């Protein structure tokens, strides 16, 4: 504060600042405000045109019947009523929930396990970290989805491998009970990015805590349960939220593996794939908007639930 008062005396004022020190703060503020709004022109335009207006437009469209060629027609709750009897809608809800509930815990489990193994002063950390991380980097690409299609295809790598040990493989992708599993495997395969975050979290745990636990006679398991896990809960929580939201929005893999159909028998009809089909294949944009709002509500509710439950299991050091 003192230096601020001294400043105009010692240094020349910025060219357009008034000489009178007393008036300066107010003027200063409006000048910064004007500059700030110039800086913020792109963001303000983007927020308005790319986010806010579309958000309200999509809320409106959710209550209309709209095929993009004719003007939207108000239909009230019809779109939402339609979902109740829409088998494909329920199929997509089920597929997405199963995928989230199975693949996210598995993926995070692998990530944590490998992070723990790599954390204990092992040589070659950089190599392993890169090797495990690479699939995360490529995992959401069309190229890898194509690769997956061939790996689990009738004459693919998996069946060839099974044949070597005398097991007859399956038509993994043609069978409704196994098609989703192949996509779960794909998501688990990309455990590298949460693993890197876990590794960074493990670094933060002070060695003294482990030493103290050792002095108290705690073995590896008890150290893990009473030191590592509690101190890592904020990171586990962070990864859980991130991966859950990501898994809800899975699209590319499902689209490529099923050729855009979500088949066989809707077994890979991810929710976002269904939104895409309704909106951009059938051009039923009113219904697609309603579906999108249900997705947003679901993600919002589940994220809120995560935060509520987190009070009981996430520990932030100081309290």
């Amino acid at each position, binding site marked *: 504060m003192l230096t601020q008062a001294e400043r105009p005396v010692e240094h020349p004022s910025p060219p357009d600042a008034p000489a009178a020190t007393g008036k300066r703060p107010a003027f200063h503020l409006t000048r*910064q405000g004007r*500059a700030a709004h110039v*800086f913020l022109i792109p963001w303000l335009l983007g927020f308005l045109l790319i986010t806010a207006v579309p958000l309200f437009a999509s809320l409106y469209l959710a209550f209309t019947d709209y095929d993009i060629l004719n003007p939207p027609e108000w239909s009230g709750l019809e779109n939402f009523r339609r979902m109740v009897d829409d088998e494909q809608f329920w199929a997509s809800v089920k597929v997405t929930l199963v995928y989230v509930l199975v693949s996210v815990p598995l993926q995070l489990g692998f990530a944590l396990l490998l992070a723990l193994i790599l954390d204990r002063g092992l040589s070659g950390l950089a190599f392993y970290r890169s090797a495990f991380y690479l699939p995360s980097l490529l995992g959401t690409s069309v190229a890898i989805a194509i*690769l997956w299609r061939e790996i689990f295809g009738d004459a693919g790598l998996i069946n060839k491998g099974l044949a070597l040990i005398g097991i007859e493989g399956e038509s993994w992708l043609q069978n409704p009970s196994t098609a989703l599993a192949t996509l779960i495997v794909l998501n688990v395969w990309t455990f590298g990015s949460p693993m890197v*975050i876990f590794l960074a979290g493990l670094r933060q745990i002070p060695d003294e805590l482990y030493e103290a636990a050792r002095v108290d006679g705690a073995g590896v398991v008890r150290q893990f349960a009473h030191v590592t896990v509690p101190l890592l809960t904020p990171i586990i929580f*962070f990864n859980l939220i991130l991966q859950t939201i990501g898994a809800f929005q899975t699209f590319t893999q499902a689209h490529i593996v099923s050729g855009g159909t979500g088949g066989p028998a809707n077994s890979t009809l991810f929710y976002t794939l269904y939104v895409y089909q309704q909106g951009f294949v059938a051009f039923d944009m009113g219904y697609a908007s309603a579906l999108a*709002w249900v*997705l947003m509500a679901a993600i919002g509710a589940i994220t809120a639930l995560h935060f509520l439950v987190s009070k009981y299991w996430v520990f932030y050091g100081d309290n």
Partner: protein
Amino acid sequence: MTTTTAAVISSPPPVRQRRIRSALKHTGLLVFVAFMVYPLVWMVVSAFKPADQILTDPGLIPNDLTLDNFKDGWHALNRPFSVFFLNSLLVTLGSIAGNLFSCSLTAYALARLQFRMRKLYFAITLASVMLPFHVLVIPQYIFFSQFDLVNTYWPLLIPKFLATDAFFVFLMVQFIRTLPRELDRAAWIDGAGPFLTFWYVVLPLMRPALVTTTIFTFIWTWNDFFVPLIYLTRTQVFTVPVALNSMVDSETQSGVGMLFAMSLLSLLPILVFFAFAQKYLIRGIATTGLK
């Protein structure tokens, strides 16, 4: 196992025992790495195999090597793949420029300038990080199609120049907050306004945040499938992922080799990028949680 680990904890193990344990650990990890990387290696090898051998022989050592898959795949669609690579490159570089420009301006204003709406704007930015893209995409599509911009790159690029990747704004704000404010003050005293201060003082110091933004914008845009799939329907404007998708649609049994060859090429820029930017990439996700 439990008895030995307990012993290890209570007193430091003899060197020999430690060596054996470490060797076992490395062996296990290497087997796991091999298992994880096998699909990728299989794709690389298969791309060079004669098309009819790919699915009959899962081994990694090909009998004969051929470049036919690349030659055929390159011309599998009615335009050579070079077109799609150039399209992808254009979109990716444009997106990087857009994000660097718009997000850094926004972040500087939110992190350093004082004005009445600052907190509200920042809250909006944070909230929009959480907003699923699917609720916005339909009106956005209608909006861009009314301006007759479907099948152009504008719908892909305009949002990037308007700071809609809010995560990067947030990342940069957090970064700018770690820079000492005295630097800005000194510049103000020397007569620099907010624009000169931003350009000559803050922007050069933001280098690490800009690098992270560049890396992730590159990877995400290069891999992006959903947005180009929606906006780009004519072959000549396809990006690489959309072109690959369209190859899948017209796939025949002999097409696997071509698909693998082109898929492999589509991953090359990311692999090269990974080789060079690995350090920044790992640091980027470790500190920000970006994938």
